[in-house]
């Protein structure tokens, strides 16, 4: 976020990542896509002392992945937050270190191709990303020289991109009390989120999704189908053929291209030159695929996706008719069979966007340019010894590290066991839930004269992690804990 109204947003995805810029004065946002106009694959290729990231890395995976001097790191986002490290040519590299290469690639690409320097950005994360994962993501960005001003949930960024990226802009007042279902089907995952809009606040009501049934899997299904069709037509057996090292990469790239084309055209050809060879002959693949054939291949995945929608609605205790908008984003949402199935269920409430693959990054950039902050989606409090609940932060409080510090002076009502017990709660429309307990040592000896005072401090950090610490007046050591799963929404008013 800058004072000039220019903001950068980054969508760090499991399979693809992209950065974007937004200018508040013009209301325009622009993604930094690669030379093909698509997001950058989140693939990091280590070869010798060099590191290559993006499409060039993705297109070499199968060619070199079995050779000792090449290491490909894919889907690194899934490993963030677990303190996982990878042995790359004898050197231990953390997931954050690998992820930093993706950030570095996005930053370098923006500088070289668009002459824009990304120094700070709002980064979109999935709703299920907890504080540990956000912390490692920040480390990754820091290593690449990108300061994360704040995090935003991906579906909220998509909604911001949809509402504020329109001409004329749609205001949230028009959508007050509506329920938006964000259907994000990308390359690696399907993420469905039901979002409530109330008085300018976006809060998540429920989530559902699929982990391994998305665009990349469709490419492989199409590749297998084309391969069988090729073998049958030429009366060949796969065991008789030798596959060139680069065949699988080229085959997958071609299948991905055909898959995208089949969203607009009814028929396309998958062509891979010199894909296989026998002792005497080289074979090229040139098979035609129709949209109907492709849709049959993935029909079970589409059914599974529709089932996930029902699951998300059930969790949110909502009926289909209560959903006012269904926002389709992610590359796989362009599949016509999916659009038809959704239109049967939601009719004209389906909203599609042209920039489905980059809308999250653009939304995050708009959030950065407008200086919108995340807000608490639940009230955080503590249980007192008399059974009452004392509020520390109200729902709707903006989460900024500078304003999030709150000390509370307390005393221990029964220190006979030498322990003061702090019970931290969260409260939403369903009720009060216990978040965690903190046991603080106190002295039982003071009892005759005075109950021991206990100072409890609450603080949010930039990763939206709540730190709670407590210290008895007679003790020197602080006891502390971190709450990683605080729910946050977005206030756009």
């Amino acid at each position, binding site marked *: 976020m800058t004072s000039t109204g220019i903001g950068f947003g980054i969508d760090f995805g499991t399979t693809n990542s992209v950065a974007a810029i937004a200018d508040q004065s013009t209301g325009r946002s622009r993604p930094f896509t690669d030379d093909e106009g698509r997001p950058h694959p989140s693939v990091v290729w280590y070869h010798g002392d060099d590191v290559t990231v993006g499409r060039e890395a993705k297109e070499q995976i199968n060619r070199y992945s079995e050779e000792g001097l090449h290491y490909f790191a894919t889907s690194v986002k899934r490993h963030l937050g677990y303190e996982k490290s990878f042995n790359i040519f004898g050197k231990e590299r953390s997931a954050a270190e690998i992820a930093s290469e993706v950030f570095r690639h996005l930053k370098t690409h923006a500088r070289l191709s668009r002459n824009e320097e990304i120094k700070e950005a709002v980064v979109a994360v999935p709703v299920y990303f907890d504080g540990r994962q956000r912390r490692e993501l920040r480390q990754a960005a820091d290593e690449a020289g990108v300061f994360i001003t704040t995090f935003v949930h991906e579906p909220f960024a998509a909604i911001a991109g949809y509402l504020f990226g329109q001409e004329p802009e749609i205001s949230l007042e028009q959508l007050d009390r509506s329920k938006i279902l964000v259907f994000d089907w990308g390359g690696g995952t399907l993420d469905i989120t039901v979002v409530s809009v109330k008085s300018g606040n976006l809060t998540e009501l429920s989530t559902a999704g699929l982990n391994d049934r998305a665009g990349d899997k469709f490419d492989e299904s199409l590749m297998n189908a084309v391969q069988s069709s090729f073998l049958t037509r030429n009366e060949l057996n796969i065991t008789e053929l030798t596959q060139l090292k680069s065949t699988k990469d080229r085959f997958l790239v071609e299948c991905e291209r055909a898959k995208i084309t089949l969203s607009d055209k009814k028929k396309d050809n998958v062509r891979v030159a010199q894909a296989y060879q026998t002792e005497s002959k080289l074979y090229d693949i040139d098979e035609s695929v129709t949209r109907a054939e492709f849709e049959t291949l993935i029909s079970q995945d589409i059914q599974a996706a529709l089932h996930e929608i029902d699951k998300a609605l059930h969790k949110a205790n909502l009926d289909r008719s209560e959903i006012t908008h269904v926002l389709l984003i992610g590359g796989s949402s362009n599949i016509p069979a999916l659009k038809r199935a959704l239109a049967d269920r939601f009719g004209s409430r389906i909203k599609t966007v042209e920039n489905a693959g980059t809308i999250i990054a653009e939304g995050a950039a708009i959030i950065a340019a407008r200086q919108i902050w995340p807000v608490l989606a639940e009230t955080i409090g503590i249980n007192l010894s008399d059974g009452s609940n004392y509020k520390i932060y109200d729902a709707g409080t903006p989460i900024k590290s500078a304003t999030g510090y709150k000390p509370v*002076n*307390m005393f*221990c*009502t029964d220190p006979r066991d030498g322990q003061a*017990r702090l019970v931290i709660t969260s409260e939403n429309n369903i009720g009060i839930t*216990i978040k965690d307990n903190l046991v603080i040592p106190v002295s039982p000896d003071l009892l005759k004269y*005075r109950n021991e005072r206990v100072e409890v401090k609450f603080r949010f950090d930039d990763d939206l992690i709540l730190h709670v610490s407590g210290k008895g007046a007679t003790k020197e050591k602080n006891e502390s804990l971190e709450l990683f799963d605080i729910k946050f929404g977005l206030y756009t008013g």
Partner: protein
Amino acid sequence: MDTNLQLKPNLMLDLSEKVDKFFPLYRPELRGQNRQDLRYLPGDLIGEIYPELVDRRCIKNNLTPEQIEEYEQYLVCELCGRRCAGTCVLD
């Protein structure tokens, strides 16, 4: 992480009210010690540290009903000789 393991909290807000007497304290040395927090102590604990406050002639004035219940739960029963909280007569 939401947890289903709930400890009984034993912390209360320290509002630092300058109240000299919430209880009619008989011991003059306790006056001025600002023990307004006594109202939040468990009854059995008050019985341990201030036996005069739980004298049966004045206990109702000194302790809240919850504190009296807590205090009585820990009395040694004259019938069975245990801390039975009156349950021995039910056997």
